[in-house]
C-alpha cells in the first residue's frame, strides 16, 4: 500500500508529491529497534507462557515448549492473582485520584494565578525533585515515618499522638510514597492543559454571569480533560507495574502484582506462569484503562446532554 504511494505527480494528494519515500520511513529506525529488541524477545516470553516449567533445563531457559498448553493461564487465573491484582489496582487508582486532587489546585494556581516569572520558578521546583533517584527518595520516606524516628517523638511529645507513628509497612505508607513519586507527572500535564485555555473563554463565562464555581465546572474543568487524561496515563500505568515502592515501604500490606510476577520468574523459577501472569496483567491494565475511557465518555455525553437542556434556560 505504502509502497504504491511513490511520487505520482499531480494526481496524488499534495503531501505525497513531496516525499518520495514510503510513509513509515521516518519511523524505520524505531520499527527496526522495537522489532529487534521488544517484539521478538517478548514474543519468545509470551510463547513460554504456553509451555511448561523445566527446572532441569541447561539451555538458559527453564521452559519446555514441547506441548502447547493453556494450563498456565488457568493457574494464573487464581484467587491469589486477582486478590493481589485488585489490591494493586486499588492502590494505583487511589494514588492517581489523590495525585489529581492534590495536583489540580497547584496546576490551576500556576496557570492562572501567578506571574510569568514565578510560574517558571514554581514549575522548575515541581520538576526538580524527580531528578533525585527514585529509590533513594522512596527510602527517605522511612525516615519521617519511622516509629522511633524524630518526627514520631515530636508528635508524641506535643501530645498529637499517644503512641509512635504506625505507618511503616502499611498500605498507607505505599500510598503516600506513590502519590509523592508521581505527583509531578500529574501536575505538569494538568498545568499544560489549563495553560492552553484561552483566558477569553473563562472571562466570557464570568461576563455572562456565571460564578467562579460554575465557570470552573462548565468551562475550565472540561477543557482540562486532555491534561487529566495525559496525567492519568503518565501516573496510573507505571504505578500498576511499580513494586519497588511497595518493597521498600509496604511490608506485607503492600504486596503488588509486579512483585508476584517477579517471584514467579525468580523464586519459583516458573517462567511460564510468570509470563502468563504478565500477559494477564497487561490485558487487565488495558481493560481498566478502556473501562475508564468508556466511563468518562459516557459522563461527558450525559453532561453535554444536560447542558444542552439547561443552557437555553439560562439564556432566556
Amino acid at each position, binding site marked *: 500500500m505504502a509502497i504504491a504511494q511513490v511520487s505520482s505527480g499531480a494526481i496524488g494528494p499534495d503531501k505525497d508529491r513531496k516525499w518520495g519515500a514510503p510513509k513509515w520511513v521516518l519511523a524505520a529506525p524505531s520499527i527496526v529497534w522495537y522489532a529487534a529488541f521488544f517484539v521478538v524477545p517478548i514474543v519468545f516470553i509470551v510463547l513460554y507462557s504456553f509451555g511448561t516449567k523445566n527446572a532441569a533445563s541447561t539451555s538458559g531457559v527453564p521452559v519446555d515448549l514441547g506441548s502447547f498448553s493453556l494450563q498456565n493461564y488457568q493457574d494464573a487465573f487464581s484467587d491469589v492473582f486477582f*486478590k493481589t491484582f485488585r489490591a494493586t489496582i486499588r492502590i494505583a487508582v487511589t494514588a492517581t485520584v489523590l495525585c489529581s486532587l492534590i495536583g489540580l489546585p497547584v496546576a490551576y494556581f500556576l496557570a492562572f494565578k501567578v506571574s510569568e516569572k514565578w510560574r517558571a520558578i514554581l514549575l522548575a521546583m515541581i520538576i526538580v525533585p524527580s531528578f533525585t533517584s527514585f529509590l533513594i527518595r522512596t527510602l527517605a520516606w522511612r525516615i519521617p515515618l519511622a516509629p522511633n524516628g524524630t518526627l514520631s517523638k515530636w508528635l508524641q511529645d506535643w501530645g498529637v499522638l499517644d503512641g509512635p507513628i504506625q505507618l511503616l509497612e502499611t498500605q498507607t505508607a505505599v500510598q503516600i510514597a506513590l502519590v509523592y513519586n508521581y505527583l509531578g507527572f500529574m501536575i505538569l500535564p494538568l498545568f499544560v492543559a489549563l495553560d492552553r485555555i484561552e483566558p477569553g473563554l473563562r472571562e466570557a463565562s464570568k461576563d455572562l454571569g456565571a460564578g467562579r464555581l460554575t465557570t470552573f465546572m462548565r468551562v475550565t474543568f472540561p477543557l482540562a480533560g486532555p491534561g487529566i487524561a495525559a496525567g492519568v496515563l503518565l501516573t496510573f500505568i507505571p504505578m500498576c507495574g511499580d513494586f519497588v515502592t511497595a518493597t521498600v515501604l509496604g511490608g*506485607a500490606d503492600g*504486596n503488588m502484582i509486579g512483585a508476584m510476577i517477579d517471584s514467579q520468574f525468580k523464586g*519459583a523459577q516458573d517462567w511460564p506462569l510468570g509470563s502468563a501472569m504478565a500477559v494477564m496483567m497487561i490485558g487487565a491494565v488495558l481493560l481498566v484503562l478502556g473501562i475508564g475511557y468508556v466511563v468518562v465518555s459516557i459522563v461527558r455525553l450525559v453532561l453535554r446532554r444536560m447542558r444542552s437542556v439547561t443552557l437555553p434556560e439560562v439564556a432566556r
Partner: protein
Amino acid sequence: MTKRPAPISILAPESFRAKLSRRALFQMGGAAAGLAVLAACGSDDEGDSSGSAGTTGGTSASTPEGSVLGDYSNVVNSASGNLAMYTWGDYNDPEIVGALAESTLGVSMKVDYYASNEDLIVKLEASQGTSGFDIVVPTGAYLPQMIQKGLLQKLDMSKIPNFVNVDPAYTSRDWDPNNEYSICKNWGSTGWMWNKTLTGVDSISTWQEFIDVAMNQASGQTAVLDTAPNVAGMYFWANGINWTTEEAADLDAYEAFIVDEFAQHIKAFDSYPSTKIAEGAYTLAMAWNGDARQAFVRIADAGGDPSEWAWALGAPATEIWMDTYCIATGAPNPDAAHAWINWLLTPEVSIKDLNYHGYNSGMKNIDTLLAELIPDIVDADMIFFSDEQVASMQTGAVNSAQERLVDILNKVKAKAAG
C-alpha cells in the same frame, strides 16, 4: 581526626585491631598499610593503601612462637587484572573486597550485589556464561541445581592450598560432597528477636512460642524472613517435622495453618530486619543470627535501648545455612578468583571478615583463633553456638516442594495484604 568509634568498631574491639595490625606486619607485608586503614576506621583521614603496592607471592610467612596461627596454612598467591564478584549486600569487609585485595593480591575488584539466590540464578542462567562474574556466593541448598544447570565451574584445589584451614565440619556437605565447586564462606542459623517491653514477653524459647507470641502479643507487629523455606520451617519445626519434607499431607497442613490462621498477623516479609527493628517497625522478627547481631548495634545507633531486646536461636530445631564461594561458568579471570578465595582462607583475613559480617567463617579451631585475635568480641553467642544447638540445626534443600512453598508464600502474602 575524629576518635569517635564508627559503628563497625563497636563490633571490632581495640584488642583485635592492635593484634591484627601487628600480625599483618609480620605476615602479609604490603597488606599492613591496608589494615592500618581499618584501625583508622571512622576517621576522615586520607590515608589509603595505594602507597603499598607490594604483593607477597606464594609464600608462607613465619609465625611468632606460641601462637596458634602457626597451625594454619598461610599461602598468598598474587594475581592480576580485574576480579568481579557477585554477592549479597554488605557481606564482606569493604577492605577485603577493595584496597586490601588490590595491595595484597594485585587484583582490582568490582563487587555487585544481589538480594536473593533466585536473583543470582536467574541472572547466571539467562546470561549463559556472559555475565562477566568470577566469584559468586550462593547458599548451599541452591548448589545442586546450579551445578546441574552448569552455572558453576569446578574449583582447582591445587590453587587453594589454604583449604586445609577449613573445619572439616563445614566441608563435604550434602550439596557438594567433595567440595568440587564450593568452599564455605560462612554459615549461620535462624532465630528471632523481640522487644521484651512492648510485647511483655520475657522468654520465647521454641518456634511454637514464637508462633503464639506472633499471633497474640506481637500480632500485626511481626516480621518473618522473606524466603519460602524459612516461613515453612517455622511451622514444621514447631510441629516436629523436618523442614525439607516433601509429603503432601505436611504441605497441606502447613498451607491450611499459615494461610488461614497465621497470615493476618504478619506485618512484613523481611530477610534483613535489623534496620527496621531499629526504626521501631517490628516488635518481633524472625532473623538470621548475623543480622540480629547487627540489630543491637543499630538500635543503639538510633538512640534506642538494646537491653529491651532479646535474641533466641530457633528451637527445638532450626536451620543451618551456608553461603559458599564458587566460581561462575565463563568467569573471565578464574586465576584471580582462586587466588582471592585462597587468600580469604588465611586466618587473619577470615577473622577480619567474620568480625565485619558476624557469621562463623568455618575456620578450624575457630575458638582458639578468635581468643587470640579478638578476645573481647561482643555478642559471641550470636556467632558461635553450643554443640547441642549445632546438633539441632537442619540443612535445607531445594527439592520438589520448593514450587509449592513459593506458591503458598504468595498466598500468604496476598492474605496478609488483606
